[in-house]
């Protein structure tokens, strides 16, 4: 009886999971399908899911019209660069918060997190002016700096959660064994925390890749990443759904592939510390 019940609830949960996943994935699927339609079919009042004339013309148009690979390269530099720079700052910060705590550590961590609750537009003017004055507008360096600052609280928190799980005694043992702080971090802490560091890096690459507020405001042509590339298909000449979809597909596919291959690592990273 109990078995029957648990089977029944298993089926219900599975159906529920698939339904929710389907709902989340549907817009992406719709975008992908639309990218293979003609513009006429894309704006048709009775759109068809699969029964239409499949075409690659949108992709060739998009590739001919805009320098996709330049944008792609900008996205790579900005997301990977900001994640690596962020790690460089976040690792020592998280180390000190996890292992050299004082009574203000918790407040500091909460304060860092609270900065994520501020709507970005709240600091738009000062950041824009700073960027203008330091000639950082439309530069990859500028974007790397902004992305690093935006994602730093998340990086510090993720690493802090990881580091907290590492027994204190292992680091103390390394100190007894003659290791200084740098050796302790490089030879002991980092190798042990490698899975956590990898998932922090991955998540931040994804966040930075998808960030669209600052990238649209602070870039024009030179440093514009793929988000700006998508946006360029949305306005001046009216909406071209099929081309916009093709551009979107080309922008999200690399990160989808990265996410797909690293999903185990990511899930472990995000749920780390939640259960023993």
């Amino acid at each position, binding site marked *: 009886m109990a078995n029957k019940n648990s089977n029944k609830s298993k089926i219900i949960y599975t159906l529920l999971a698939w339904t929710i996943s389907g709902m989340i994935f549907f817009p992406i699927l719709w975008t992908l399908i639309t990218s293979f339609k003609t513009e006429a079919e894309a704006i048709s009042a009775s759109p068809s899911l699969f029964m239409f004339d499949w075409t690659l013309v949108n992709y060739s148009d998009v590739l001919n019209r805009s320098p996709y690979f330049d944008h792609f390269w900008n996205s790579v530099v900005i997301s990977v660069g900001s994640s690596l720079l962020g790690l460089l700052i976040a690792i020592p910060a998280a180390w000190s918060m996890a292992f050299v705590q004082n009574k203000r550590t918790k407040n500091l961590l909460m304060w860092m997190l609270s900065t994520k609750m501020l709507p970005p537009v709240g600091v738009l003017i000062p950041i824009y002016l700073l960027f203008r004055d330091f000639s950082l507008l439309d530069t990859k360096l500028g974007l790397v700096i902004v992305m690093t600052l935006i994602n730093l609280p998340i990086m510090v928190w993720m690493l802090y959660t990881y580091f907290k799980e590492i*027994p204190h*005694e*292992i680091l*103390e*043992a*390394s*100190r*007894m*064994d*003659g*290791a*200084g702080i740098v*050796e302790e971090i490089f*030879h*002991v802490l980092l*190798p*042990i925390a*490698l899975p956590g560091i990898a998932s922090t890096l991955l998540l931040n690459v994804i966040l930075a890749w998808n960030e669209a507020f600052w990238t649209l405001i602070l870039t024009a042509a030179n440093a514009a990443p793929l988000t700006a590339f998508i946006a360029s298909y949305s306005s001046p000449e009216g909406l071209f759904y099929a081309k916009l979809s093709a551009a979107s597909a080309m922008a999200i596919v690399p990160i989808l592939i990265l996410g797909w291959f690293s999903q185990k690592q990511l899930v472990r990273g995000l749920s780390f510390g939640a259960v023993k």
Partner: protein
Amino acid sequence: MGSITLKQVTKSFGDVNVIKPLDLEIKDGEFIVFVGPSGCGKSTLLRMIAGLEDTSSGNIEIDGNDATKTPPAKRGLAMVFQSYALYPHMSVRNNIAFPLKRAKVAPAEIEAKIASAAKILNLGDYLDRKPGQLSGGQRQRVAIGRAIVRQPSAFLFDEPLSNLDASLRVNMRLEISELHKSLATTMIYVTHDQVEAMTMADRIAVFNGGVIEQVGTPMELYRNPVNRFVAGFIGSPKMNFIDVKPVDGDPTRSIGVRPEHLKVTQEQGLWTGKVGVIEHLGSETFLHVHVDGVGTLTIKDDGECPLQYGDQVNLTASQNKIMHFDKEGVTLASLSWGDNAVVAQ
């Protein structure tokens, strides 16, 4: 060399004084055990000696040099932790080599030292394994191996056997004692297990509430405990304590008799009671006897004890085995056993 001197050392966490001003001299080559209940400050003091915990005031001298502010890496001490604290990402070989690499020892010498440690600790077959693939006893051996290759001036052990099962604990206890005999290096060993303290130590320091109650050889503490706390902590099963009625001119407020000094007798003894739970251990028997007005007394009898639950028994003890304590619990020196009036029957 490995003499360690503590001079008026204290430790406070905020307003809480975990170590009250404390002096202790640990001689070169000595095996000293810090023993006491949980939270008595013994591990904190060990960590202060290691340098892992700051000293609030006072001085720690190692080989005559003030090391109070010296970082742990520079104190020349090695520590074995309760959780082994091995580096999980390194092989046994690299775990043992880690302190040598930090000290920039030549690779050939590192190999030689690893080989000799592996031989002493029977780790030869496991050198290329990761700690996760080893049993608890093997891990503890690796931790000891990592400590001995450095040839430290003293070893610090922080409850190293508490994570092992009972039989392995006995074996490792012997191995550590053996190691001490062969290396003749100072060892400071923290435990809450008085059996470990009694069996391994040259000297024992009994801790209670951040102070050292008494320091002495195991037999000194057993025979002449300075107070009720030490008398109760050293010896297994625990000493029986009996409160007594105050008598004019006699400061005795309680007396103590060890279970092994209480005898069941046919004649009229000092106390009469009813046998409660009987624990047969084979070689010996623990009797728990309920005595009216006194409480439950534990008696250590031989293995072939014929008594049954509920039997009426008389108990006695020779006068010179009964300890007297005053109202502060301090042992009263060489008090002769007066009359039976002191026993609250």
